[in-house]
């Protein structure tokens, strides 16, 4: 990886919920316009890591973090002081959650709201264009074009998750964080989303947490293995799956946990 190719650089990061340490000395660099998959047993700190990247963990009482996370050269914990700078950071990073969480409003508004909030636009025409484009990007448009004003909560789980991805796209982020985006979906929706991720990779940097090793094999460029808060192994996909270096990784891949 060359320096100009690095989107997110993480150095010596430790973090705690209260007294309990959940991340231990994490070091990793995430490449631009690629898919980085994070795997590991439950409660090893994957979600915590992801939520530290866009500082959503700030909402949790008692959360502490040390070390450096730099995004586009900016140390997001030390350099960002003002609320508006934090907003800009988060606009650069979309996040898709484990459980689809569209807002309880119409499909259209779900996309229009973040777009117009970011761009401060009220031109209906421009908003319409963006809504349609983002829905098309996630291949949802044909399924919902007749009912853009229907509540987003009426969609199926898979559709909701694609809507949430489309919602991220409206703010044209550079990076999108996915926390087990397929864990509540059926195999067909899962495949659809995987195809979508491969397309998105052309334009966006994607970080995805997954419990599904096959999925990581199918889509990832690089894979990181977390175990009890530590990043045990982090390497290119082929190497990771064929010649894992660490004993724990081998065990995990063999399903011995």
């Amino acid at each position, binding site marked *: 990886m060359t320096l100009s190719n690095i989107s997110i650089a993480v150095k010596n990061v430790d973090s705690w919920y209260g007294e309990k340490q959940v991340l231990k000395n994490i070091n990793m660099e995430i490449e631009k316009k690629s898919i980085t998959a994070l795997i590991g047993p439950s409660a090893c700190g994957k979600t915590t890591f992801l939520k530290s990247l*866009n500082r*959503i963990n700030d*909402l949790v*009482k008692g959360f502490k973090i040390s070390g450096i996370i730099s995004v586009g050269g900016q140390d997001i914990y030390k350099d960002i002081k003002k*609320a*508006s700078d934090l*907003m*800009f*950071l*988060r*606009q*650069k*990073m*979309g*996040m898709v*959650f484990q*459980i689809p*969480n569209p*807002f*309880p*409003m119409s499909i259209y508004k779900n996309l229009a*709201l*973040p777009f117009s*909030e*970011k761009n401060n636009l009220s031109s209906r025409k421009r908003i319409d264009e963006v809504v349609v484009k983002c829905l098309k990007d996630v291949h949802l448009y044909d399924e919902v074009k007749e009912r853009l004003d229907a*509540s987003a*909560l*009426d969609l199926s789980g898979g559709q909701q998750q694609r809507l*949430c991805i489309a*919602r*991220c796209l409206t*703010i044209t982020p550079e990076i999108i964080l996915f926390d087990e985006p397929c864990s509540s979906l059926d195999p067909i929706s899962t495949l659809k989303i995987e195809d979508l991720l491969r397309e998105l990779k052309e334009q966006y940097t994607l970080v995805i947490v997954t419990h599904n090793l096959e999925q990581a094999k199918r889509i990832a460029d690089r894979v990181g293995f977390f175990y009890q808060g530590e990043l045990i192994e982090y390497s290119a996909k082929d190497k990771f799956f064929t010649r894992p270096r660490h004993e724990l990784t081998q065990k995990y891949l063999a399903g011995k946990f």
Partner: protein
Amino acid sequence: MKSNKRMVKDNIFKHILLVSAVLGGLMIAFIFVFIFIKAWGVLSVSGLGFITETGFSEQIRDSYYLAAGEQTWFFGTKGLFIATLLTTAGALLLAVPLGIGTAVIVCEFSHRAIARMLSSVIRLLASIPSIIYGLIGLMVVVPYIKDSFISPELQIQYLYDPIMRMQLSGKSLLAGIIVLGIMIMPILTALTVDAIKAVPKSYKEAGLGLGISHWRVVTKILLPAAKSGLFAGIILAAGRGIGEAIALSMVSGGISNVPQVAHGGVFFLTPVLTLASAIVNKSEAMSVAAIESALFSCGVVLILTSMLFSLSTRLVERAVKMK
């Protein structure tokens, strides 16, 4: 043998419960029927005039002093009805913005310890009896209104007003609105806090994660998501306002005037009487059958309004569930 005994016990238990449930049901039915029967005497004579005509205070006085045969059974509570609506609407105008604003601060923009303290103060305030609000209204709000808005000249002028004569004493629509507003504000705040807290945390995470500012997340996502709860809170507070008798009977004047827009600002200084406080004020004359029936008719109007309210919250709940 033993299990037989157990079955008997089980059966007796069930029947005790049944009896009390049936008695409860009968009691409720009896209350409604009784009130409607008592009200019928006046309602059948007055018809819709009961809420479209004025003159309640005078009609009560006439019924009280005339012999049984000559009494009027016609009552017009337009003044009471309007006063009830005005005080409640005014109180809501005062309390809704304050309540929602406070709730937003409590839920989203204050330190945890402060938020906890605030919500317990609010809950305490919501349980203070209305008589205390009435007392403070009478001792603080009414004199304040009198001192700052009512001059002796104004008093004299309105004693001989061509449209409607009245005695301005500070006990007024305005006093009613202020006291009622302060009274329902904590209820509204508490219910709004509950409604906002009931919104799933994931909406907030998603909103902030999209780089929307905290304030906008609150106003554009959390409050709309809480709107059925907000609406239910407003309805409940309105119900409290419409049914409030004691505090309003103390501060709002006790005369069934219809405030006149032509009076300008004095509109708010008009002494008024609401439906619920009319029952308190005139209850001493209840031994007169016509007056008793008139007061029950006020009760019927109140019951119908509260039915309307509980119906509308149910409709809102259903609409939200369907979504």
